[in-house]
């Protein structure tokens, strides 16, 4: 199985021909500290290699490898296969950043199925800390700016139940980027498009609070608020824009449709199934989320998802276990089912090594 070395800062996947490398022994001997093409000092050939990457002249000296684009150091363990990286999409305020942070924290310890984060790749943990620093400093998370995908890029090496490991990588993009994806200029968002090109599966966040609002409006025979209508429009726009790209690539992309802020829902008897203490199985949650989306007037959205993606996993999660009212306190957070969407996507992966 061919793999590539991922540069999560540039969103490029490298084979041997596009990597640079240095040998510490060569540098010491020549006094020239300049990365050379990997093929000239470490040999060509596909990844993964049977042994470590070593210098041709000094076979016991491991090579340091670098991205040819940004010249940043890369981890030789940062290998991705054809399934690429995981895109985390969703509208503004749908809870993407919180979800990603809580997943990365929860997986530091092995899940029930034995999946856990072995190590952060590059500066992922520092980036994550910066992204959620508002929680620590102000008890509140800040909105994400519509950057290009040059910051808020994360990659972690995950150990699978088979003890093999793989790399998962995300970019946390602002909801505005996703909802405006159809008209987003590639000139200003080159890295974001590279990230999209690498995406092989997707977590799509749907704001549970807006779903609740839609259900209540329908029950009362009222009219949707502008915010609720906007959320519905954006969700469909995001799925349509990504579906176009998926179809253009003629690939099969798995998707986890995730209802966030499930704590707002599980207080209602109809949706108490989402509570972590309920003990519902993945299949039951899957069916319940579909019912929820239908009840909230999201049939068109479900049809669009089912048309474009396969397989589709419907899940409901709560990043904090309660409403995100400030001040948030770390010790009071009770994440519920947050790992399930990612584990569902990883379930079908072939262990690479």
């Amino acid at each position, binding site marked *: 199985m061919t793999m590539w070395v991922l540069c999560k800062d540039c969103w490029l996947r490298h084979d041997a021909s596009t990597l640079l490398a240095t040998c510490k022994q060569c540098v010491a001997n020549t006094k020239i500290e300049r990365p050379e093409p990997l093929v000239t000092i470490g040999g060509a050939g596909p990844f993964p290699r049977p042994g470590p990457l070593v210098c041709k002249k000094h076979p016991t000296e491991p090579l340091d490898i670098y991205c040819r684009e940004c010249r940043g150091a890369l981890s030789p363990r940062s290998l991705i296969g054809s399934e690429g990286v995981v895109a985390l999409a969703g509208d503004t305020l749908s809870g993407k950043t919180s979800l990603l942070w809580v997943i990365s924290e929860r997986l530091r310890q092995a899940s029930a199925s034995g999946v856990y984060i072995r190590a952060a790749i590059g500066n992922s943990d520092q980036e994550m800390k910066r992204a959620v620093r*508002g929680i620590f400093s102000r008890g509140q*998370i800040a909105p994400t700016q519509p950057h290009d995908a040059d910051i808020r890029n994360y990659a972690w090496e995950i150990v699978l139940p088979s003890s093999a490991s793989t790399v998962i990588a995300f970019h946390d993009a602002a909801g*505005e980027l996703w909802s405006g994806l159809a008209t987003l200029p590639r000139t200003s968002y080159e890295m974001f498009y590279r990230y999209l090109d690498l995406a092989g599966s997707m977590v799509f966040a749907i704001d549970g609070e807006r779903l609740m609002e839609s259900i209540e409006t329908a029950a009362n025979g009222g009219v949707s608020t502008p915010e609720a209508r906007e959320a519905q429009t954006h969700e469909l726009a995001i799925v349509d824009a990504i579906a176009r790209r998926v179809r253009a690539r003629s690939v099969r992309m798995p998707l986890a449709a995730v209802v966030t802020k499930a704590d707002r829902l599980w207080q209602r008897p109809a949706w108490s199934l989402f509570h972590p203490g309920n003990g519902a199985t993945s299949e039951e949650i899957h069916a319940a989320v579909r019912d929820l989306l239908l009840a909230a007037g999201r049939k068109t959205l479900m049809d669009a998802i089912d048309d474009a993606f396969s397989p589709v996993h419907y899940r409901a999660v709560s990043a904090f276990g309660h409403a995100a009212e*400030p001040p948030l306190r770390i010790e009071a957070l009770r994440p519920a089912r947050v790992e399930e969407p990612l584990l569902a996507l990883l379930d079908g992966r072939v262990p690479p090594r």
Partner: protein
Amino acid sequence: MAEVEILHRLFSHAARDEWAESGWRNVPLDERDARRDVPAEVLHELDGLMAKIVPAGDDTAWVVRRFAAANGTYACVIACHPGLVADRGGRIGLVSHARLVHVPAGQAWLDAAALVEIAESFAIADVRAMRPELRLQGYVDLLSEESTASIREVTLSELDLPRAFLSDMLVGALARISRREQIRVALPPPEQTLIADLARAWAAIPVALQLTSAWATGLADGCPVDVVFAVSSGKPPRDVGSPALVDFVSRYVSVLLDSPHDFSAVLRNPEITSVSKLNDALQRAEPLSRIGDFTPPPAESVDMKKDRKKAPQSPIPHAEIDGDIHTELDRQFRAMETSLRTYIDQRFAAMEARATQREPKAAPTWTWQRGLALAGIIAMTVLVTWALTRKPLREPRRDDETTTIAETMPAETIDDAETPTTDPRMEARKAALDKVIATAENDRKWGEGLKTLIAENGAMVSDAIAEATKGLPENHTVRVELSAIAKLIDDGKLQSRDRVRDLLIDVLSGRRIDGRLDDVDVDEIKSRYGVKSESKDIVKGFDLQSEIILRWLKEKYP
């Protein structure tokens, strides 16, 4: 002093009403909105920039840029205020506010400094005192008081900043200019006046060069600027700029602040679009300041016949001449001396031969004449050398002695070294290239043609390579490799032309420069350089590659 209308552009996470879209959005400002007057392409770039600004802490972040437009430029100062508003979800969001002024072409104004002054005097405390849901509207209402700005021209007195601060700012701003690498540079305190001082110091960069510059303070990662200045963090400027840049800036600041001449014409010069062009301009201006007390003698004292009593002395004391200039003078003098000696020896040898033919028995009597002639020629050489080194300064001088430095280096003369006129070397290169192309057009052996050209006119190819890679960062892999190849060509040691072809095609293709050809649009590059070959194999078609390179060279040596 000019009174100029201020144009505004405002973005925020807060919505002005429930019908406005959520998230990071433009807040329309009606008649004050930059959308009214600013060209669409500038607005597009500005909006993209504003979307990526995030303050690093709880203080306002600043970004300063200048945008090019058909009728001049737009100076732009963006202030990004954290924690001022909340979005619909109650999350603490940002307000980013760009102030722009239109600057007519040919002006060098303290525009960024004026905009910073206005932005700093904005009553942000009054906005913070409002209820969160009213702050955005309050901010917009207060903006109505900002309609025009009084902007002064750049003068040396306006640049009266501590010399070290000015030098450090310029090194930081120029070290990665146009690369948008967001390097972090530490500057000396005080922090309170940092942004105002930086905006003034920025005015020391020529306006045309400012168009490629973008800098900031108080900014988090992820924003496309060249440099982020700070007082408490970052690298010292000397660590981000090369020794050559640090030296250049030091000399530039000396000329700027110490020269009695008006330097503002250089700041206005539209041709100075790069640091190297500024360096060229500086080199033309520099001898005046580098030679210390030396000033060219007045016109009447140049005539030596009128003042024979004065002891002849070098007009430039050696002790005051820079080492490089001295070495160059010495080299030129020795070359001329050698050449003249050879010439004289040949002439005397010929004369002796003729004299011997006329009077075979007569002894040669040329010793004293030869010595006299040599002494005269050497004296001439000294004078000619001195005159040559002064020529660029002296040429445009007017009799009234009021010439400015800028006038001594008019825009059209800055690049005159690049203008092929009747330079015999250039003519020889053109002829060689024409011959190679004519042969290859006949026999279709373009690869052989390139080989011949490299073997016989390597300098022509290596010069072209150097120019082709000029736009790449100095440490770019392809630039480094091509520079090494150019040296091999110069030394006549190039063994294989495969790599030079690959890399040059990669550079010429207009696609990603990564040393690979798989992304090259063959039809596009063929059409761009008028290639007639029918081959489409750009990866292995050596003749096709060679033809592209030769056609490209022909464009360079028309």
